[in-house]
């Protein structure tokens, strides 16, 4: 099949899905991404966002971004190496290193670029990357372009990681990687055991804190804090698109590693710098995280209430232990029907279908937020009950 013919095939599939009324991607939202949004001329309950703490619209975050626009404008017009580094970029990197108790940190324009650039900078043909089977696509893509040998251990199975590492003795460098909270399932990596097994084999550990930073741990310092391991993980990577309600990625770790990444990660070197208003907003988000711990408490109260009520109704929430909640349907057609009913009844949610997940693992993935009111959640649960029954799931 030629290039254009291949594109036509995708185009036809998308158009056919739209004609069936089952295309729910790229729905335009005409309001801020809060607990309720305006979509298709009506109010909907937002259940698909990872703006867990609701900081994307926090007055202090918005004020910081506005002030930065006034002082710095919208762009630096260059990459970080050339003319894209401001005092604000350096301030955020220092804040990150302090937050994670590491020597240094580097920020990227997006989380995806951060992971891609970091892996690519650290490993090559003589090395091996060992991934959890459910790692995020950015880690898989980063591992692929790095040229390193890629191995996989069974999801969260540290006995299997041990077994895989036994077979990796011939490689120079060994990098073990995992999501801290898995983006499609919401379960938490067994970090203490993973670090222990990796150390036994002389491997470096890197975790992706995308869905756990600002969510897990008493002060939001993710799985390292949750497991009492702050300062004990070799490398921490993540994104600002979840906890901070912004965009951007980072890697935190030893100073030598960060300087190496800063000069060799192609996604860093050849990308324009993150806009200062974004950086200022993220810095303000860190302040809010410290000043308003009640947001974290509310997030977990909401998560517990929603999960408990959904389970009482008979929904299968998989292995989730966090605000990242899948409603397991395990049937492609029923998942589409469910998504359709939810949409019609004012729930903004998204179906995760094959090939993103196996055909028997299709689901509706939800994000619970601190800004959801009890009324939002009760109304949403009522709609889920109706949709679940109509789709034949409960």
């Amino acid at each position: 099949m030629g290039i254009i013919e291949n594109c036509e095939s995708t185009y036809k599939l998308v158009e056919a899905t739209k004609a069936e009324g089952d295309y729910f991607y790229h729905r335009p939202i005409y309001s801020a991404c809060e607990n309720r949004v305006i979509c298709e001329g009506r109010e909907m309950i937002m259940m698909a966002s990872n703006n867990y703490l609701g900081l994307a619209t926090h007055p202090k975050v918005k004020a910081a971004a506005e002030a930065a626009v006034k002082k710095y404008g919208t762009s630096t017009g260059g990459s970080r190496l050339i003319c894209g580094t401001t005092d604000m970029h350096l301030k955020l990197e220092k804040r990150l290193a302090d937050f994670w108790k590491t020597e240094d940190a580097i920020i990227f324009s997006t989380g995806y670029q951060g992971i891609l650039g970091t892996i690519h900078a650290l490993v090559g043909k003589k090395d091996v990357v060992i991934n959890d089977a459910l790692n995020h696509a950015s880690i898989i893509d980063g591992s692929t372009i790095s040229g390193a040998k890629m191995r996989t251990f069974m999801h969260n199975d540290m006995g299997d990681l041990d077994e895989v590492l036994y077979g990796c003795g011939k490689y120079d460098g060994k990098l073990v990687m995992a999501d801290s909270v898995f983006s499609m399932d919401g379960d938490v990596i067994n970090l203490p055991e993973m670090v222990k097994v990796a150390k036994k084999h002389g491997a470096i550990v890197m975790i992706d804190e995308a869905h756990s930073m600002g969510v897990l741990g008493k002060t939001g310092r993710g799985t390292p804090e949750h497991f009492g391991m702050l300062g004990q993980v070799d490398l921490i990577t993540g994104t600002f698109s979840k906890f901070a309600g912004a965009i951007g990625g980072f890697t935190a770790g030893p100073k030598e590693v960060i300087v190496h990444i800063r000069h060799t990660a192609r996604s860093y070197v050849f990308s324009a710098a993150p806009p200062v208003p974004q950086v200022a907003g993220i810095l303000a988000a860190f302040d809010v995280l410290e000043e308003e711990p009640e947001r974290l408490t509310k997030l977990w109260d909401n998560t517990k209430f929603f999960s408990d009520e959904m389970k009482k109704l008979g929904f299968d929430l998989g292995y989730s232990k966090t605000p990242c909640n899948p409603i397991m349907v395990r049937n492609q057609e029923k998942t589409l029907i469910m998504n359709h009913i939810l949409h019609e009844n004012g729930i903004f949610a998204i179906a995760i279908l094959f090939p993103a997940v196996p055909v028997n693992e299709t689901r509706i993935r939800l994000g619970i937020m601190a800004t959801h009111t009890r009324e939002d959640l009760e109304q949403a649960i009522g709609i889920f009950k109706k949709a679940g029954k109509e789709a034949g799931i409960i």
Partner: protein
Amino acid sequence: MADIDQEARKIIAKISQRDINEVTPDKLLFEDLCLDSLKGQELLSRLSQKYNIDIPDEKLAEIHTVNDVADLIKSYLK
């Protein structure tokens, strides 16, 4: 050689997260057992590790069924 058939099924069952009884010799790896290219590469790595052989990733194009996997290992151990 019967051990190889059984071991291949065991490793495929683990990677595809299926019950070993589902992993019968005629099952298609990608269509029936939902392996993807990454899982296929992991399968070859695990076989290489288990039998102390070196199966290149290109061999993935030559295996379609569970039985093909067992035959591939046997060809390396001849």
